[in-house]
C-alpha cells in the first residue's frame, strides 16, 4: 500500500554489482577535481557512475538524476524549464560535484550545494544500494545521510543517484563591475546579490531578480561607485581557499578573487593545510570505520585532506 524508497532501477543494481563487496574501488567523474583529498591508491579499480535524468518534476522543483550525468546536461534540461540548481558546472558530473561539495561562484544567489541534495542513493562498502533522505523538499525523517555524503569524496559510499532541489532562474540577471569601491559597501548596498567578487582592485556584483528591481539596485550602487556592465565574473585563479567572510574580504596578497559575504577565495597558491578539530576528526574516523571498515572506497582519499 505504501511507497517505500526501495530501489527498483536495474541500472543502479548493475552499478552496485560492478562495485561489488571486495576490492578497492573508486568512481571517476569528469576528473576536474581529481586531486582533491589526496591521490587515489594505485590498486583501486575505477568505475563510472550510471547516467541519465530519471525524473524531472519542474512544478515540484525537484529532479532525480543519476550521478554520472554531466552537470552541463542537467543544467540544459533544467534551463528549458527556467530552473537551475546550486551545483557548479566545472565540466564534471553531478556525482562528482556532490562528492567534492564545492559551491558555485554564485552561491549567494543559487544557494549552497549541501542544501540542494534532498535524497542520495549510493553503493555501500558491502555492495548494497542505500537510500538516504527523501523525494520531497522538506524532510526530517531519520538521520541526514545526504548531508553526510555531500563532500565526503566517495569515502563512505559511491554515489549512484540523487534527487536535487531546483530553483527558478531569476527573470533578469546582470553582472556589473567597478574599481576603487569598498566591496563591503557594495554587498551592503544590494539586498540579495547573486555574487559579490573582489580582486583587490575591482568589485563585480551579480544582480538577480525582477527587471525593475535590478534597475533600482543599479541606481543604488551609483552612490557607492561608478559601475559598468560586465559579461560575467572575472577569470578565477586555480586554487580555492575556504576562509571566513571577514578574512576573505581582507585577503593579503597575490592574484586572487574573493567571494564577499561567503569566504571562498580563488588564488594562485593553494591554501595551507587547516588544523582540524581533533574531536571532529575522531568522529570522522569512526564514521569512516563504520561505513567502510576495510577502507575499500576511494582508498587514498580523505575528505578535508
Amino acid at each position, binding site marked *: *500500500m*505504501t*511507497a*517505500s*524508497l526501495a530501489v527498483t532501477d536495474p541500472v543502479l543494481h548493475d552499478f552496485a554489482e560492478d562495485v561489488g563487496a571486495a576490492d578497492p574501488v573508486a568512481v571517476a567523474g569528469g576528473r576536474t577535481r581529481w586531486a582533491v583529498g589526496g591521490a587515489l591508491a594505485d590498486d583501486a579499480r575505477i568505475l563510472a557512475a550510471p547516467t541519465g535524468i530519471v525524473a524531472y*518534476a519542474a*512544478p*515540484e*522543483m525537484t529532479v532525480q538524476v543519476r550521478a554520472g550525468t554531466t552537470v552541463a546536461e542537467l543544467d540544459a534540461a533544467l534551463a528549458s524549464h*527556467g530552473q537551475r540548481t546550486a551545483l557548479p558546472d566545472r565540466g564534471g558530473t553531478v556525482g562528482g560535484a556532490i562528492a567534492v*561539495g*564545492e*559551491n558555485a561562484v554564485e552561491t549567494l544567489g543559487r*544557494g*549552497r550545494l*549541501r542544501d540542494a541534495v534532498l535524497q542520495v542513493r549510493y553503493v*555501500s562498502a558491502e555492495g548494497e544500494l*542505500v*537510500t*538516504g533522505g*527523501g*523525494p*520531497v*523538499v*522538506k524532510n*526530517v*525523517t*531519520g*538521520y*541526514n*545521510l545526504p*548531508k*553526510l555524503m*555531500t*563532500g*565526503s569524496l566517495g569515502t563512505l559510499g559511491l554515489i549512484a543517484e540523487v534527487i536535487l532541489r531546483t530553483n527558478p532562474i531569476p527573470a533578469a540577471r546582470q553582472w556589473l563591475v567597478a574599481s576603487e569601491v569598498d566591496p563591503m559597501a557594495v554587498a551592503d548596498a544590494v539586498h*540579495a546579490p547573486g555574487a559579490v567578487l573582489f580582486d583587490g582592485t575591482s568589485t563585480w556584483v551579480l544582480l538577480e*531578480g*525582477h527587471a525593475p*528591481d535590478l534597475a*533600482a*539596485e543599479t541606481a543604488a550602487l551609483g552612490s557607492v561607485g561608478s559601475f559598468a556592465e560586465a559579461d560575467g565574473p572575472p577569470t578565477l585563479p586555480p586554487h580555492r581557499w*575556504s*576562509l*571566513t*567572510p571577514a*578574512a576573505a574580504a581582507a585577503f593579503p596578497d597575490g592574484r586572487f578573487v574573493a567571494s564577499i559575504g*561567503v*569566504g571562498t577565495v580563488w588564488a594562485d597558491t593553494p591554501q595551507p593545510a587547516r588544523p*582540524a578539530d581533533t*574531536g*571532529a576528526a*575522531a*568522529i*570522522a574516523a569512526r*564514521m569512516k570505520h*563504520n*561505513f567502510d571498515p576495510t577502507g575499500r572506497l576511494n582508498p587514498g582519499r580523505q*575528505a*578535508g585532506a
Partner: protein
Amino acid sequence: MRLLDRLTRRGAAVVDPLVADLRAALAPERVRMDGAERALMAKDASVFGGGVAGPTCFPTSTAEVQAIMRVAARHDSPIVPRGAGTGLAGGAIPLGAPVVVSLQKMNRILEIDEANRIAWVEPGLINLDLSRHLHPHGWHFAPDPSSQSVCTLGGNVANNSGGPHCLAYGVTDAHIVALEVVLPDGEAVMLGGLDAEPAGLDLRGAFVGGEGTLGITTRIAVRLTRNPPAVRTLLLSFSSVRAAAQTVSDIIAAGIVPAALEVMDQRITVAVENFVSAGYPTDAAAVLLAEIEGLEAGVDIDAARIDEIGRANGATDVRRAGSDAERELLWKGRKTAFGAIAQLAPDYYLHDTVVPRSALADVLEEVYEIADRHDVVVMNVFHAGDGNLHPLLLFDAREEGTLERVHAAGAEILRASLAAGGVLSGEHGIGVEKQRFMGELFSDADLEHQNRLRRAFDPLCRANPGKVLPEGHSCADIQQLRAVPTGVWG
C-alpha cells in the same frame, strides 16, 4: 519554592551515588530529583506519556555539560537533552530514567559578528528572543516555528525545525554554521566552522536533526538573514480546499518562491477567528496566506501574479494587508491556531507529514475521509508551499477509546502520505512517535546506515536512547528501553 527545597533536601539524605556525583560536579541546587521536577520532565508537548526522568540537571556552561556527561558515563546512565519541551514527537521524553539535561539556563546571545554574518548563541535561547534582538540591527534568524515564542535554538537544531518562512529561506539546517557539541563521553567538539566550506565530513549537517541522540549542543553559530526591504501579505479565500491547494502548486510552478504559503481550512479558520479576531473570513472553505519578501517592485509583480493565479483557481476574495499592523494580525491568527483549538477540545494530536505539492489536494481529501471513518474531528493548518501537512486531530482523552481512534486515524494518514510519495515527518521529527513506521519508508540497509551515522557520535548509545530508529536497528545494549511507553500507540 519552600516545598521544593524541602523535598530536595529530604531527597539528599537518600541520594543515590549518581545524584551525589552530579551535585558535586555542578552545584547541589542545580541537580533536582524531587517529584514535581521529575513529573515536569517526564513529558513534552506531544500526546505521548510514559517517560520516567532521572535527576534533572541545569548546567550553565559547556564545562558543566561535560561534567554531567562524564558522571553519567561513569555510572553508565543514559542522558536526554531538553530545551523547552515543546517537541511534538516525544523527542525529549526520558526513557530508561536518564539524566535529564535542561539547557534552559544556557540562554545567552554570546556574540553578534556582522562581518561574518553570524551570531554565537547558547542552546537555551528562545528562538523569538534572538530575532527580536537582531531586528533593530537589520537582521533576523529565518526559521520561525509557530512555537517560536517558547522553543529553544538547541531544540530547533536537534529537530531541524521549520516554520512558515522556511519555504524561501530553508529550514534550520541551512542557517546553522557551526556547533559546539558535547559528546556522550564528555568530549567537547566543534562541528562545521565559520569559513565558506569547512574541511572534512559535514558533521554539523549530520548533527542537525539528530533529535538529541548524537550529543548536546552547547554553542551555536547561526547565520544572520537580512530583513527584507519590502513585504506583501495576501489572504486568498476559496470555496474548496482543493482550489487552495491547486493555487499553491500553480504559484510554485509559475516560478515564484514566496517567503510563506500557508493554508488553513474552514474549521480552523473559524476557531482562530473566534480566538483572536484577526479578520479571517469564516465563510471560506479554505484560506491561503501568502507572503512575498524582497525589493519593492518585485514583490508587487509577484503579488499581482499570485492574485491572478488565485482568481484563476476560483478565489472568491483576495485581500492584501494594508499595514504592518494588519499583516501582524494575520500572522497572529496563523501562529495561534493551535492555541485556538483549546476552546474546542481538551486534547489534540498534531500530525506532521510531507507529500509532493502536486498531491496536496488528493491527500487532504483522504485525510478528511480517514478522520470521518474513525469518527475523529480533523482540522488542517499547514505549510502548503512545502507540501508539509499538519492534520490536527481533536479529542478528549478522558473519553474511553478516543485516543486509540486518533492513533488509528494518524497511522492511516501517514500511510496515505507515504503512498503519495511523501515522507513521515517534515519538521517535528521521529522521536518515539513514528519509529515503528520507519521500516515502511526505509529498507533494512538504509536504517543500518542511519545507525552507523548515529554510532559515530555515540558508540555506546547513551544519548537519548529509544528514539528515532526502530527496534532492531539501534544499539543492542539499550533494547530494554524500547518497551513502548504507555500512551504510545502500538
